[in-house]
């Protein structure tokens, strides 16, 4: 018996030793797991939509100030008689404001100059310039603009391309090189000035507003005007007897984004509004804005598409949500009293 014990004991002891060591490892893993995940759950927390609204300092704001262009029919146009703004940018601003909790009469539009779109300064005609909360002004998203301090773009809300407008009866322009050596008007701050310059066009770009190019075009000082198709289509549609729109077939596309400045929480909320508009099949506000403002311009523009008639893709914004708000991977906006009323009306249409 003792011999059996002494030959069996070492193996049994070894087994027990490794068993205990394994248990120690398991204990350490369990402690690390519990403490680690406990701390992780405590600290990691995606903001909820209300958290973002508080962070964006929207609580207590009585009005949303939006900088828009005022001289482009169909995109952002201020009626001189009534002072009322209309256009695609205006409708997109209303779309975003509604999701932020502002009713249409709580949104104030002011005209912004093209060079102030980065600084987000608007002027109401009395007193010093005001800082806009959002800038929805055909502001194309480019790397150069993103590098600028204080410029932060939301996801794109419209995709268009550069095109050319001439007087009616001008020879067809199929490429910018067809205008080589001729004077062409564009904006100093525009993304259209460098492709034009590269094509050998005489770029006359000392205008602050694109509508300032029109008198020169009509007088013959300029041969053509070049900028985004969505903008030119508006002018052509307003006076189809005077102007003609040409498709120059540039590959690069212009993506319009909303400038939210340094307010990152606001940028996420804007992206959330655009994401819902894109992915919720019941949300047709973008399509309605396009049909109201840009679709009617297409016949006058001929072969040049005014813009892509589908909302550009928007990346998902990660926020905490109630499970029922996450139906089928689409995030529904919580209904405010107005949206309920509006949905009720539109379903009868």
């Amino acid at each position, binding site marked *: 018996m003792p011999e059996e014990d002494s030959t069996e004991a070492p193996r049994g002891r070894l087994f027990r030793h490794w068993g205990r060591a394994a248990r120690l490892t*398991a*204990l350490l893993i369990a402690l690390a797991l*519990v403490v680690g995940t406990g701390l*992780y759950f405590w600290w990691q927390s995606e903001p909820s939509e209300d*958290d973002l609204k508080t962070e964006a300092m*929207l609580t207590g704001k009585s009005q949303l100030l939006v900088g828009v262009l005022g001289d482009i029919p169909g995109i952002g146009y201020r009626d001189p008689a009534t002072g009322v703004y209309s256009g695609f940018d205006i409708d997109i601003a209303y779309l975003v404001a509604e999701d932020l909790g502002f009713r249409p009469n709580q949104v104030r539009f002011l005209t912004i100059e093209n060079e102030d779109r980065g600084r987000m300064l608007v002027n109401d005609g009395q007193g010093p310039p005001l800082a806009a909360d959002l800038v929805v002004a055909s502001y194309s998203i480019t790397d150069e603009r993103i590098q600028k301090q204080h410029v932060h773009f939301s996801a794109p809300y419209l995709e268009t391309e550069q095109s050319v407008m001439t007087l009616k009866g001008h020879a067809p322009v199929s490429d910018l090189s067809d205008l080589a050596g001729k004077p062409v008007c564009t904006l100093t701050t525009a993304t259209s000035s460098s492709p034009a310059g590269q094509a050998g066009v005489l770029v006359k770009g000392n205008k602050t507003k694109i509508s300032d190019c029109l008198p020169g075009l009509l007088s013959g000082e300029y041969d053509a005007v070049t900028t985004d198709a969505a903008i030119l289509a508006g002018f052509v549609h307003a006076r189809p007897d005077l102007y003609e729109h040409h498709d120059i077939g540039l590959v690069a596309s212009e993506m319009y984004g909303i400038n939210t400045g340094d307010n990152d929480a606001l940028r996420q909320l804007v992206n959330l509004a655009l994401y819902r508009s894109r992915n919720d099949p019941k949300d047709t506000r973008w399509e309605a804005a396009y049909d109201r403002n840009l679709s009617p311009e297409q016949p006058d523009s001929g072969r040049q598409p005014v813009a892509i008639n589908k909302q550009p893709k928007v990346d998902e914004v990660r926020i905490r949500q109630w*499970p029922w708000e996450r139906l089928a991977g689409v995030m529904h906006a919580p209904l405010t009293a107005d949206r309920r009323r509006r949905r009720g009306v539109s379903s009868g249409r």
Partner: protein
Amino acid sequence: MLLLVQNVGPLDLISSLVITLMWVPPVFILPGQALGLLFLASTRETGPESWLSRTADRTPDWVIAVTVMWAATSWQLRFVPVLVMVTLMIVGLSARLRNPDRPQLIKAVCVGLPLGVAVLEYLWFTPAIKAAFANGEVALALILLLPPLLAPLLTGPIPARVARVATHAPAAGAALLGPFLLVAIFLRAPILPPVALQLNADPGVLPKVVLGSVVTVDDTMTTLLDSDGAVRFVPNGQVATKVLCPGEEQIPNSAVMAHEWSVEQSALEWLLPSRGPQKETDPRCEGRPEEP
């Protein structure tokens, strides 16, 4: 401060404390018991007793049983595997300590039982684990996946030399840091109801909305604590309308569900009837006046 003490009753503060911290005592009792028993099992032959092992030894079984049931109802669903792991640890170590001469029983309770329970747990939680991995929520997936695997290993002794450190260090750490954690949790608890008051305005002027937590209302004035922590007195005559704003609801971080129960809910929350969170946001709660 005086205003709060005068107007917020001690019963309100205590009930707020109880409701927020209800899940906390089992967090200290159960792991403490488990670590104490582990120390006893590892150093039964060799070592002296310590404060932890004495406490573990003297705690009656019914206290542990009640604490386990308390934890089962008040802990979130995602922590139930951890609870089961700690309970199995306690049960297995107790069996080992009380029945040293019945190896079959020890094997059954310390290995067989955890394995059986692990199978049941995986049957219940596997869809949730898969969903958590799919969503990229690794921490959640691990805390559902690992405890059933670790439970069979934790029901036996560890090397005697390290037993003291391995069991007393976490227990002492929890005892030292615990009070700070409790204070941190309690300070986040809401006590006063948040309201929005819309004030009277002249026609043509946009009405103002005041947001804050009501401290007291008397016949002339409403006293509010606004979001900056300042006290505001609003005469009742100036108030046009008021509305109770639902406080920051506990919106879950994770969308993972186990059989239609959110992993971030506790059993108590399913059992008690509660009004669902408001689906409509009143514009006054965001600081903007209501349209007439």
